[in-house]
């Protein structure tokens, strides 16, 4: 009940936040503007459209994931509304978990709104529905949850600017880290080798959640791989939340 109260309040705050609406608006805007692109380009319009729709939804939902997480937790500490919560019989871990679920709900609603619009648009345009795209969005959602957990971690220990920089960097690293897979095995120096192994396995591997190519190219999707990606996300998020709680438990509210 206490976690639910925190989560719902977080959701309320996020949805009453103007940035949230703006981002949804832009998501819609991109979907619509893709119509313009199809008018101006030749070739497989459906493919271009899918491509653009997925890219814009991806871009805006990632922005929401990064910034609402950072904004909400930081504000809570900065404006001291947190005194009001933590002076009540609620543990700090409940607070963090409540925040996480609130953000998860916020992202879910944002993503669903964009996806529904995207599907309607595709249906009207091409008269067909590619349900496989749904799988893409499910994986995207898990990626968003990882990103928002990262932003939760950073914003409970540092300033919004630093948190944004760290979260965005980790997001970018997360999408290229798989390219170091072979590279790390070629390292000779044992110390650097150990460090790169640790980094390789602890930094988030976000490419696991990107099946855009298979979708757009109409390649079959490997269910086993998808399930393993989801498991990876769940463990990764759990680890991040535990770390955040450990740090948050030590924190002083001055």
């Amino acid at each position, binding site marked *: *009940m*206490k976690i*639910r*109260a*925190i989560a719902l*309040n977080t959701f*309320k*705050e996020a949805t*009453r*936040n103007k940035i949230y609406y703006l981002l949804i608006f832009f998501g819609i805007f991109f979907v619509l503007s893709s119509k313009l692109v199809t008018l101006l380009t030749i070739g497989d319009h459906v493919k271009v459209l899918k491509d653009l729709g997925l890219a814009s939804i991806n871009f805006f939902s990632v922005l929401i994931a990064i910034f609402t997480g950072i904004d909400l937790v930081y504000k809570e500490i900065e*404006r*001291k*509304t947190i*005194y*009001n*919560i*933590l*002076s*009540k*019989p*609620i*543990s700090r871990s409940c607070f963090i978990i409540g925040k996480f679920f609130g953000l998860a709900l916020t992202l879910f609603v944002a993503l669903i709104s964009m996806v529904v619009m995207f599907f309607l648009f595709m249906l009207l345009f091409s008269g067909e529905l590619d349900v496989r795209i749904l799988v893409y969005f499910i994986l995207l959602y898990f990626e968003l949850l990882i990103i928002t957990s990262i932003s939760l971690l950073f914003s409970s220990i540092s300033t919004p600017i630093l948190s944004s920089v760290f979260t965005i960097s980790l997001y970018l690293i997360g999408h290229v880290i798989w390219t170091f897979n072979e590279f790390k095995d070629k390292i000779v120096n044992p110390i650097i080798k150990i460090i790169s192994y640790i980094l390789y396995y602890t930094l988030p591997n976000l490419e696991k959640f990107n099946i855009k190519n298979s979708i757009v190219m109409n390649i079959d999707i490997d269910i086993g791989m998808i399930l393993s990606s989801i498991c990876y996300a769940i463990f990764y998020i759990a680890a991040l939340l535990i770390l955040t709680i450990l740090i948050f438990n030590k924190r*002083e*509210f*001055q």
Partner: protein
Amino acid sequence: MKAIEIKGLEKTFTSNFLLKKYKVLKDINISIEKGEIYGFLGPNGAGKTTTIKCMLGLISFDSGESLIYGKDSKSIEGREKIGFLPEHPYFYDYLTAKELLIFSGMLFSIPIKKVMNKAKYLLELVGLEGKEDLKLKKFSKGMIQRLGFAQTLINDPEIIILDEPFSGLDPIGRKELRDLIISLKKSGKTIFFSSHILQDMEMIVDTVGIILEGKTIKQGKLSDLISHSVQYHEVVFRGVDESLLKSNNIGFELKDNNYITKSKDFEKVNHIIEFIIMNHGKIISVTPFKMTLEDIFLEEINR
């Protein structure tokens, strides 16, 4: 058992930069009986807010104890019994007054129906009826303070901790708050509050604790502290020759054609009055001056 007991509380802050250490609380000792109103006094920066934050577990402390009915006040169980109003309260400005109270109640796991009724009752109690659905963005400072007070009572706490509850209130609001605090005391609650507004404090507290630079320097019943109640008498008179006063060793000041003389010794006051009458002077007034909390406070601080 004591409602609140703080023993030898010490707290050191370490700055992020250069890890410089500041010992802010050096030896705080507070002991509050159930059903008391306890006033926590100290100049700016003495450590009042820090003490309260330590009690609630918002910050950790180096050593000492903070107990509520003999149990750790920082524990979740301890906080269950507390209602707390922070200094300069700030609440989510996107919520309405009612939503804030409901949210607060949910953090105590109070059933939603009960919390709704309670919220309505409390908003009336603090004079915010009709403002239930107004966003907090649109609240004035005093209204926020009132709402903050309503919010501290949502869980029907046995112990109410208020950090500067009178700040931001107009004279009417202060009077209402004093009355509220007294009525809470009557229903058996223990109230612990810090304030700079000594007049308000003097009117309602049973016990005061004075802290200076992180140490408790005085604690006692208000009635004991100001027991020698009359501090001095002031006699205002006219119509006596100045030279006569001087030759009789009666000190005086001249103000609006009246002479004013002050004395701590009641015998001497009587003597002066007799002297004035014998010399055909006219007494305008004789006023006893009582010691106030302010005098005690200033005396302790300057010691």
